[in-house]
């Protein structure tokens, strides 16, 4: 299938899922009603439901899905490893720690912006810490190890916050927030998440061309004219911005960033620079679909979207590892 056609199909899927998502809820609305309501026509109650209640959540699902998938595509290209995801440099854990601190200290109750701001601050601080720890000219291995160290530290801190929570309710609030959710999100959340997410998109899309030359190795890429140090820096910052914004408003949503690039790679001929846009569309579609599924599955309390993506994503990740093993076997046999 030609890449242009697959991009068109993915975009169509996103639009379709967008409309379906807007129609799901206690009041089921058909796609036609939804489309009219988006433009302010039809029953005023429907317009209220679609525009004020469901549109923010749906917009966030699409934006966050696209951002996570884009981050995954950019990182897999940067470290030239198909098992890389947005969490490798520690940004999600740091953002979670920021948010958890805000909840634990009661700031989230005092100021509605406190939680998202704290999460974003956490993600950005993790970039600063990463660069201080590894150095701006660090090798990929050093960067990865530093990211792992910071991620572990942030996770430990989150566990500590849970441990020291002032009340069982606070602990529950933290725990549930960590699961990742798009419930009850308003346009305040969209406005909060949009600037860093758009910054992420700008940085990662602008630098995607250099990923091609990088496949021949860092040294060869540098001799081809790629400023590898700048590429690493911009990628790390871009991912931190995007993930920070995403985690800030929705909690931890895993596996979308890791898995989505693999799904679209066969469509674009494995060119690391061409994965980005299809990955964004597929990520948006996947998270929209997951959000629909969460609301449709009949359980006592709504399944959190982070739980859903983990339940679907983990088996897929296992399949990826098995496939990688199979490739390794083939290579050693080929000789």
């Amino acid at each position: 299938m030609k890449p242009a056609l697959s991009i068109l199909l993915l975009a169509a899927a996103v639009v379709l899922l967008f409309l379906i998502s807007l129609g799901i809820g206690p009041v089921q609305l058909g796609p036609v009603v939804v489309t009219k309501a988006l433009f302010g026509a039809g029953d005023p109650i429907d317009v209220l439901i679609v525009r004020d209640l469901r549109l923010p959540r749906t917009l966030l699902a699409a934006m966050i899905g696209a951002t996570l998938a884009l981050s995954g595509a950019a990182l897999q290209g940067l470290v030239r490893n198909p098992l890389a995801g947005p969490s490798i440099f520690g940004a999600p854990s740091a953002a979670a720690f920021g948010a958890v601190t805000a909840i634990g200290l009661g700031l989230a109750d005092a100021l509605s912006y406190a939680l998202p701001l704290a999460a974003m601050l956490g993600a950005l601080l993790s970039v600063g810490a990463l660069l201080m720890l590894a150095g701006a000219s660090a090798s990929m291995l050093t960067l990865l190890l530093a990211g792992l160290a910071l991620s572990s530290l942030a996770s430990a801190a989150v566990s500590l916050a849970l441990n020291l929570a002032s009340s069982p309710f606070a602990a529950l609030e933290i725990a549930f927030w960590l699961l990742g959710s798009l419930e009850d999100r308003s346009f305040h959340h969209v406005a909060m998440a949009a600037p860093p997410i758009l910054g992420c998109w700008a940085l990662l899309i602008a630098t995607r061309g250099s990923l091609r030359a990088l496949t021949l190795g860092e040294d060869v890429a540098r001799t081809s004219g790629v400023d590898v140090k700048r590429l690493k820096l911009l990628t790390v910052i871009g991912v931190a911005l995007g993930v920070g914004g995403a985690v800030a408003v929705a909690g931890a949503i895993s596996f979308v960033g890791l898995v989505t690039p693999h799904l679209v790679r066969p469509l674009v001929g494995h060119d690391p620079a061409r994965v980005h846009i299809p990955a964004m569309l597929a990520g948006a579609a996947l998270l929209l679909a997951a959000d629909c599924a969460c609301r449709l599955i009949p359980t006592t309390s709504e399944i959190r979207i982070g739980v859903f993506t983990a339940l679907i994503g983990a088996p897929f990740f296992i399949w990826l590892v098995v496939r990688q093993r199979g490739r390794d076997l083939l290579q050693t046999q080929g000789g």
Partner: protein
Amino acid sequence: MTIVAANDLIIGYGAIPIASGISIALQPGSVTCLLGPNGVGKTTLFKTLLGLIPPLGGAVRIGDDDLADLPRRTIARRIAYVPQAYVSDFAYTVLDLVVMGRTAYLGAFAAPGRADYAIATDALGALGIAGLAERDANRISGGQRQLALIARALAQRAGAIIMDEPTASLDLANRLLVLDRIAGLAKDGLAVLISTHEPEQAFAIADRVAVIGRDNHFATGPVDAVLTPEQLTRLYGVALTVERTPSGRLVVGPAAAPHAG
């Protein structure tokens, strides 16, 4: 007009010098061979000349500019690098591989355009592998892959090309093919620097050699003047001799054992 020059260069990593007193001048239309035993610093010298690591002493000059002052893209437009051929994880076509050589000329958002693809196709033609353009780069022979990497460097339109052991791990036929093409590049006006473990390759296609020996030994000059049996013996630590075959080729072999005959 010297394209790449270095005078009394000290190369190494961090604070540890590996070799010193290195002077190189790459002129257009010439092939320079870099020889030396394993571990003496040939790769380190290449990395220094390409600006990948800084020199510990002395400076590398690209034309009239100091290498340290130039941004990556400018360096890439003056010197190109050909690594040893290896199989990568990503399956792209040979043409895609070669067009990567145009990276230094693309803007932030730009993808290679028609002009870039035309230059890439010309580069493939110059090396005689135009027919490989649409083939999977991982499924061609080692010699063809090496030529594809050279074509990539050619597409970079730099005045100098530095090649790291371009014939290593190639069979005899491919070795001769690649050497022949390298000689052709110099005839087209490029300055070529290659490292090799085969002194005979230097005799075959080089105008100048540079030898790095242990204990900071360095010598450079025209091939015949520098690559004497004494120099080779000192370089490799084995008694060596140079002989001319009936067809006029120079070959290197072990010197006759003292007790023979």
